[in-house]
């Protein structure tokens, strides 16, 4: 029995946060769905999407759609990598198999910042421009965490029991 979950993420002053991420954990190990992956396109000297959420073990490709070359790097402990000056689509996508936050930067373009949030669950969602994220969960016991860019660690873990459609309010 699936239930609709709506999570509203706000900052301390009650303002809704856009592109914040919420992830729910059911305590069971869920295998990565086959072919699960993502693309983070560099276009107009921006990472698009700026915030990418993936399940652990997902492959992400970094196609460069700009005419200039980029040097994408990450010093984050969750995944340290470096795609030295390239253009076009790199031959191999990168596998992100450790949960955590990876901050993406371009060594050429200091203004380019992107984030990859790697979670150990298939249940996650990003807030829209009203700070709302929606997902479908089966009824049961869950714990959840919220995160927003700039935060080096996810917010406090909360426990929740889902029984039908539920609305969750999270303050970061």
């Amino acid at each position, binding site marked *: 029995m699936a239930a609709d979950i709506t999570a509203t993420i706000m900052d301390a002053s009650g303002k809704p946060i856009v592109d914040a991420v919420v992830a729910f954990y059911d305590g069971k190990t869920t295998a990565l769905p086959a072919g699960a992956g993502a693309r983070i396109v560099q276009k107009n000297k921006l990472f698009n999407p700026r915030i990418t959420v993936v399940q652990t073990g997902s492959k992400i490709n970094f196609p460069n759609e700009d005419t200039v070359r980029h040097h994408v790097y990450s010093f984050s402990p969750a995944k340290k990598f470096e795609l030295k000056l390239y253009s076009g689509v790199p031959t191999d996508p990168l596998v992100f198999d450790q949960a955590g936050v990876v*901050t993406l*930067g371009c060594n050429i373009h*200091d*203004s380019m910042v992107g984030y990859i949030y790697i979670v150990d669950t298939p249940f996650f969602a990003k807030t829209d421009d009203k700070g709302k994220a929606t997902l479908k969960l089966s009824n049961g016991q869950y714990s959840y965490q919220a995160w927003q860019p700039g935060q080096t660690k996810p917010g406090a873990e909360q426990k929740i029991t889902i029984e039908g459609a539920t609305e969750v309010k999270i303050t970061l």
Partner: protein
Amino acid sequence: MIQFKHIRSRIAFTFLTVVVAIQLAGLIPLKYALDKHANQLAEEQINVGERVFVSLLQHNTQSLKQATQVLAADFAFREAVATNDAETIESALESYQGRIHAQVAYYISNRDDLVIGTADNQTALFGPNAKVDAMQAIVDNQSGMLKFDIVDGKPYQLITVPVKAPDVIGWIVMGFAVDGRLASQIKQLTHLDVAFVQKTPQHDWQLISGTADHALSNLLVKTVADVYRQKMSLHRVDFNDQSYHLKIRSLHQAGDEALLVVLQGSVEPFIQDLSLLFKSMILLTLVGVCILAALIWYVSRKTTEPIAALVKEADYIAMGDYDKEIQVNSIDEIGHLAKALNSMREAVLQRTLRIQRLAFNDELTGLSNRLAFIQGVHQALLTHAESKQKLSVIVINIHRFKPINQTLGRDFGDDLLRHVGQVLKQNVLGEHDMVARLDADEFAVMLQHTDQAQATRYADKLLHVFEQPVSVQGQAIDVRTGIGISLYPDHGMNEEALLNHAETALQESKAKKSPWIVYNTALEIDQSETLTLISDLKEAIQQDQLLLYIQPKIDVKTRRALGGEALIRWVHPEKGMIFPDQFIPFAEQTGIISDITNWMLLRACQVLAGFRKQGLDITLAVNLSTRDLNNMELPEQIAHLLSSHGLDAKALKLEITEGSLMQDPERAELVVKKLAAMGLHLAIDDFGTGYSSLAYLRQLPVQELKIDRSFVMFMDKNSGDASIVKSTIDLAHNLGLIVVAEGIENEFVLNQLARLGCNEGQGYFIGKPMPEKDFSVWLQRWEGQNEIDIDIGDDLSYAINPLDVEVQKDPFKLDYLN
């Protein structure tokens, strides 16, 4: 008010005062303005300096920041930071710190309070407040402010830049020491001295570094403390006689800590520049004033020079120098003044010359006057005193000048005087000799370097000249002179004495009828002798030492004897015969004259009475003196005498001189009128020698006029004398007076007088004065043989004249000296 000796000084002073005042009026505000300007410049300099300083710091900060940013952006460094490789981070910081000359460098991680710094600053950086300080620095820096801080007691400028990967993962902080290097750098750009002063909780205010000298910087520390307390930013401080403007700016302030930068601008350079300008101004002013002073002096001198010249000329005039004519060079007021001075000088000169002429010249003769003569002698005596030579003063008098003047006219008299003057002048001995007219008819001659022999030779020469009648206005007139001579040094040491003595000698010459007389002391009658004579005279009257002499008088026409003039003689028991002129003047003065007159009147009455007894009807004339004419009792006394001797008033004649009438005219007139009323016959004696006019005499009840002998004696040789006698006779007759001529010395004159209508006469030709008994004999003889010259023996043969001079004038005349 200042008194000026010269107008030009006044002009110069006034103008210079004004000029100096104007200059001062300009200079004083200028000085004030320059001082103010210097301060303004100094202030401006310090303000500019401050801006430069701020901009320098900003620039420094910017470049340091950029340098630090280079490190922060370094991929390898970021990788080291991202991987928390502390050793690598530290060594990177160390090497970079050295490269950009920072003294402090450290990295602060924002994730896990990781702080990595260079070894030197470990203590400070890892102190309890390290985190807070660092965070604060970060915040401040992000707001774009300059960040200064005191780390471990030392001031630093802190530069903080973020390390991005690409999010900010930490901060690099670079610290640059605030030290002498920075101060020098600031000074180089601002030209201001710079000092950094700080205060920490551990230390009070202290100087970190400064470009100014140590003493000044130390002074600043104290000042700054005060200024900081009062929250002022601008201040002025005086040090070593120099003014400094201070600009204080706080670089860091936190709690008890403070770091200040003090910019010091000295006013001195500006003051020096401006005071140089001011000095130049003063110099220019001085030069200007000097030039102006010279100009004013020159102009005022040019203006007043002619005045000064005129003053000088006026001084010359004042000193009596009139000869120099004042040059008139201009047509302005000065020229007018010069002209006026010239006219004045001319007028004064003329007046002075005239006064001199009047003062020293005799206008009539052109000769010197008495004053000039006395001065001339005085001058001459000075040279003679040196040379010890003799000098003669000769006084010459013209006999009978008054009647000549009166009868022949003043013009005639004037011409005569001029003539005599010329004669005297022509005969002087040397060119320095001097001829002067002393009085109406009295001349004086000074002969220099002459002894007595030369002086008398001159006198003789004059006499020789005057032996010939003088021709004046076509008329010959006989000039008779009296001459008195005195000699320097024999008769006097000064001009007064010489002139007085010469005049005494002249009197003697006149009296003695001597052509000339040289003064000798015997001419002065000794005062003591005079006193003796006076007392003797009293005795003489009582002891009958006086004698009555009679000089006969005849009718000129019929030659009949009429009587005589009673004269007095004193036979002194010791001195022998004494002439009236030696005792009558003193008798007059002492009043004894009254006794003498009484004696004379008595004796005359006795003699007349005696003749009456013999049947001789003759008259006797007695002389009355001045004192007698003032004796109101005289008429009564005479009346008594006459009646006691049985005589009528006609027998006695009374002779009075003009002079005796003049003493007290009113009283004399009373007495005379009384006597006339008694029927007494009154005669004016010596007419022609006095000053009275016939008009005056007419008022008096006189019947007779006696012409002075000096006119009669030479009338046979001298036409002038004859004219005088003739006109006197005519005038007297017109007034109804009988005329008696004295001094008939020859028959020719007697006949001449008869022709002129003269009534009576007396003189040596008729008879000399003789004693009473001889007169009887003379009468008999004269009546018997008219033509025979009667020699009755001159009484002078036994006269003992103290002067031993032959008496030519009738010595018996009582009033001769009146």
